[in-house]
C-alpha cells in the first residue's frame, strides 16, 4: 500500500460506513473504516496523514470525545464531523476543537468529497 493520505471513516451505522467507504474509494482515496472510536484509537493511526470523517454519535465514546482525545497528536489529521441530530452547541464545540467541517446527515456526498479534497489534495490513485 502506498503511504499516501487516506480517509478514515468512523461510524457505528454499518450501512452508512459502507456507503462512505464506497464514496471515497470511488473518488480514488485510500479508505479505512472503523465502527467505533475505540477501534480507531487501537490502530495507532493518529500520526498518519489523512482525513478523519467521524460521526458525533457513537456508542460509548462520541466523535467529539475522539476528536478531543486525538488533540495535538493528530496534527496531520484533518477532522470532519457528521451528525444525524440538529445541535448547534455540538457544532460550535466541534469547531472549537478544530474540525474543518461539520455535516448534518443527510448531507450532499459531493460536498463531503470537496471538503476531504481540500484537506488531502487530489487523490493519488486518480
Amino acid at each position, binding site marked *: 500500500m502506498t503511504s499516501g493520505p487516506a480517509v478514515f471513516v468512523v461510524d457505528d451505522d454499518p450501512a452508512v460506513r459502507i456507503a462512505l467507504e464506497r464514496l471515497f474509494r470511488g473518488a480514488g482515496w485510500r479508505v479505512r473504516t472503523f465502527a467505533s472510536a475505540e477501534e480507531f484509537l487501537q490502530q495507532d493511526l493518529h500520526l498518519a496523514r489523512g482525513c478523519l470523517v467521524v460521526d458525533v454519535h457513537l456508542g460509548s465514546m462520541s466523535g467529539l470525545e475522539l476528536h478531543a482525545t486525538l488533540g495535538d497528536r493528530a496534527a496531520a489529521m484533518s477532522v470532519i464531523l*457528521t451528525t444525524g*441530530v440538529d*445541535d448547534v452547541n455540538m457544532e460550535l464545540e466541534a469547531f472549537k476543537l478544530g474540525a474543518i467541517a461539520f455535516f448534518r446527515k443527510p448531507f450532499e456526498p459531493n460536498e463531503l468529497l470537496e471538503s476531504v479534497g481540500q484537506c488531502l489534495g487530489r487523490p493519488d490513485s486518480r
Partner: protein
Amino acid sequence: MVHSGRSIVEWVGGNGSVSDTENLDSRLELLLRLVESITASPDLDQVLDSVIRSAASLVERSRSTVWILEGPRLVARACIEPRRLSDVPNRREFALGDGLPGHAALERRTLVVPDVLADPRTVSREYLEAEGLRACAVIPLLAHGRLVGVLELLTSRAADLGSTEVEMLTVFAGHAAIAIESARLYADAERRRREAETLAQIARDLAEQHDVDAVLARIASGAHTLCDSDVTSLALRDTDGSFPARFMIGARSEAYRNFRVVPGLGIGGRAVLDGRPARAAERVAWPPMPPEYAAAIDADGIRSALVVPIVVDEKIDGLLYVCSRSSQSFSDADETVLVRLADHAAAAIRTARLFAAEQAARSEAQASAANFRKLVDTLDAIVLDADAETFDIAFVNQRAEAILGYPVEAWYADPQFWVHHVHPDDRDGAAAECARAIAENRDHVLQYRMVAVDGRVVWMHDMVRVLPAGTDGRRQLRSVMVDITARKQAELEVQQQQQVLAHLTRVATLGELSGALAHELSQPLTSILTNARAALLFLAREPADLEEIRAILQDIVDEDRRATEFIRRLRALLRRGETPRQPLDLSEVTGDVLRLLHSELVAHGVAVTTHAPPGLPKVNGDPVALQQVLLNLIVNACDAMRSGQSLERHIDITIAVDGDSAVRVAIADRGTGLPPNDVERVFEPFFTTKVHGLGLGLVICQSIVTAHGGHLSAKNNSDRGATFWFTVPTCKGADAPQRVDGRGDASPLDPI
C-alpha cells in the same frame, strides 16, 4: 237349667203340701204371667224394667233393685222406689262382698234379713233409716251357673218377706236371670253390630274425607250412640294446654258447653295426666276439682263419665268424653269401643295435620311463585326461562316488552327469538359463547347488542344460569338481561377521550424525540445518497465496475426499506384511534420501540440490555398502545439518567412469564430513582418530577395496561434507580381476539 232357684213346675210340684191351692194357683198364674212378660222383649232395658216391676208386684209395698255384675262390681241398673220419704240417695254400686247385695252375690245364695239395721253387713243405713225400710231379701241372679247380678227387695215390714214370697222370688229370679242374660247377649251382639257399622263408617270417612271436622263429628256422634251417652264431647288441645270441647252432643247448659278440661283436674284431667282411660260412676266418686269445674258438670246433671285420651304421635292431643246423667257406670265394652274411636280420631287428626302441612307448603309455594312473578315483572331486566337445548322459551317477563318493544307473545312464538334479535355483528360470537357454556354446564355472563323493535341498538348484560335438569331430565336456562346501553355509551366516551389523550401524549412524546427520530431517518438517507454518488463514480470508470454498482444498488434498496419501515412505525404511533387487539410477542414489541429510540439512546449514551427467554407466550394486545407504554417507560428511564451524574447509563429490560397467564416486562434504570415517599404517586395525574413534564405519561400507561387486564407498578431499586414493570395477560387458548371497545365480538366475562 236353674241351679239355685227352682223352675215354676218344680216349685209347684215341690209344694204340693201347700194348703191354699187356690191361692197357689193364682200365684202360679201370676208367676207365669211375669215370666212371660220378662221374656217378651229382647231389649235389656225393657227386660230389666219388667223384672223390677214384676218383682215389686210379687211383694207388696216393696222397693226393688236389680244389681247387675260388671267386673268386680254390682251396679244398680233398674230400681223401683215408690213413695220416697226422703231425698237421701241410695248406693248405686257395690263391690262384691260389700253390703247385703255384695254378700249375696259373693256367696251366691239368697239372703233374707228381717232387720237390716241390726245386720252388720248393711251399708246404706242412712237411706234405709230415712225411708223406713227394715227387711231385705237379696236373691242371686244365676243363669247357667253364671252370676248375672242380684235382685234386692226392701220392705218396711219383715212380714212382707215371708217364705212364700221369698220362694216365689227365687223361682222368678231364675227365669229373670236367663231373660237378663239372653237380653244381654242380644244387646251385646246388637252393640257389636252397631260398633262394627259405626267404626266401618268412620274408617270409610277417614279414607275419603279430608275434612277432619266432619270425621271428628262423626266419631263424637258414634261414641254418643255406641256408649249410649247423654252428653258426649270431643275436646282438642288448645295452645294453652287446656282441652276445650270441639264437638259436643247432648249438653244442655252453656257452662258445660264452654267447659275446658285442664290437665290434672277432674276425670278428663286425670286421663290427660295418666294417658289412660278414666272412669267414674257416682258423682261423689269423681276426683277433686275446683268449684267452677264441678258447677259446670252439675249444671248439666252429669253423674257418671268415661274419658279416653286421643293420642297423636305419642302426645295427648284430645279427649273423647262420654257422660251419663244417671249414675249408671260406663262398661268395659264402652271403654273398648271408645278407645277404638279415639284411635280413629287420632288417625284423622294426624292425616289432617299432614294434609294441612302439605296445603301450607303448597300455598307457600304458590305465594312465593306469585312474589317471584311480581318481582320479576318489576325488575328492570328481561327475565327469561328457556330450554337449554332447544331454546324454547318457557317464560319471559312482561318487562321484556318495555325494554325491547316486542310483545311477549313474539318471544314465545319463535324458539330462535333471542338469537334472531341479537345484533348481527354480535350474533355469532354470543351464540357460540352461550353454546359453549351450556355444553360445559356453567353459568355465564355475556355482553352483546340487541336490536329493539324500533331499530334502536340496546346493549345487554346477560347473566345466564344453567339450572340442573328437573324431573323431565331437561336443563333450563335462566337468563337475566340488563340494559346497559347508557353505561356502554359512557364507557365508549371515556374510551374515546382516553384515546384522544393517549394520542396527544404520544404525539408529545414523539415531538420531544423529534431530534432522535430525525437522526434515525437521516441514517438511511445518508447511506442511500452516499451510495448513489459512489455508484455514479464507479459508473464513470473505464470499464465501469458493474459488480460494485450492483452491490451498491442492493444496499440502496435495503436502506430505503429501512427508512420506509421506520416511517411506518412512526406513522403507526402517530395514528389516532385504536388498533385491533391481536396476539403479540412482547419481546418483538420491545424490539420495535428500541429501534425507534435507537438514536435517542445513543445520543444519551444509554446502553440497553434486553433479557427475553425464547418461546414466550403471546399476549392479547393493542400493539400501538403497548408500544406507547414501552416508549414512555424507556424515555422516562433515559430522562432519569440524564439529570444525575450517572456514570452508569444502562437500562435493563427483562421480559418474562408472570404466573401462568401473563407476561411481565420490567424496565430497570440506574438513574435518580423515585422520590421515596411518592412511589405510588407517580401514577397520579399531573405528578411529575420533570421540569417540562406534563405528568400524564404514566397515567396513560396505567390506563392502557389496565384496559389490557394487566397491572403497572414501580419501585426503587435497592442500590440505584427505579424499576417500572407491567403485566399483560396472555391469549388464553384459541379464544377469539377481543376488543377493548367492545364493538366487535361479544366479550365473555367470568360467571357472576
